[in-house]
């Protein structure tokens, strides 16, 4: 099992007086996988199945149902609206845009999150980016993490 941890990208945008990045959860880990199983005997232990950095397609367009495992942390409890955008690195074309809400019940909590993003339709071989955004209380948004993903054509 491999978990790819990326340093969060701290870029905020929007018409804000306060940096959105500072008041939204920090993304500690991003892993694209088939499934996440919580341990029955140990708290805070998870088995990630089929963690992938790439996907091999037989034909294009190629459809694939993917899960994104996120490990979030936040100094403040609350409900945070997030988005995962899957975009082509070459064409900037959108593949999948989804939204979700993460609930952090206590201050300084670490939240493991399995987000089912559903069917992604990859139009061609290439590199794609999974981008994770969170919305601040004033509506501004911040890019909190990115993960590259490759789609290749199966060789006969």
């Amino acid at each position: 099992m491999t978990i790819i941890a990326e340093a969060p990208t701290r870029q905020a945008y929007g018409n804000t007086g306060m940096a959105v990045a500072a008041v939204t959860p920090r993304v500690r880990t991003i892993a694209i996988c088939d499934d996440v199983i919580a341990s029955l005997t140990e708290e805070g232990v998870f088995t990630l199945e089929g963690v992938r950095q790439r996907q091999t397609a037989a034909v294009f367009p190629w459809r694939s149902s993917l899960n994104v495992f996120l490990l979030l942390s936040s100094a403040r409890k609350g409900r945070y609206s997030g988005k995962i955008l899957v975009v082509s690195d070459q064409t900037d074309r959108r593949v999948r845009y989804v939204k979700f809400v993460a609930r952090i019940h206590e201050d300084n909590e670490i939240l493991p999150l399995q987000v089912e993003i559903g069917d992604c339709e990859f139009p061609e071989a290439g590199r794609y980016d999974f981008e994770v955004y969170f919305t601040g209380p004033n509506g501004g948004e911040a890019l909190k993490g990115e993960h590259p993903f490759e789609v290749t054509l199966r060789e006969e």
Partner: protein
Amino acid sequence: MTKKPFVPARIAPLQRIVAEPITDPVELAAIDKMRKRLKQKQRIQEAATSRNGGRTNTSRPASRKKA
């Protein structure tokens, strides 16, 4: 030097979420616009960093500032 006390973080149980696809054309257009703006900002920051020899802080050290 005093040792920092270790307080284990609370790890919440795993939350499973089925994300909702964004299909509203207005919302999609707003996201695309927001991404474009962010990329532009990123390019400006990268150009400023490369002009500055990799340093992100553009101010001169106090000792090198002109009086």
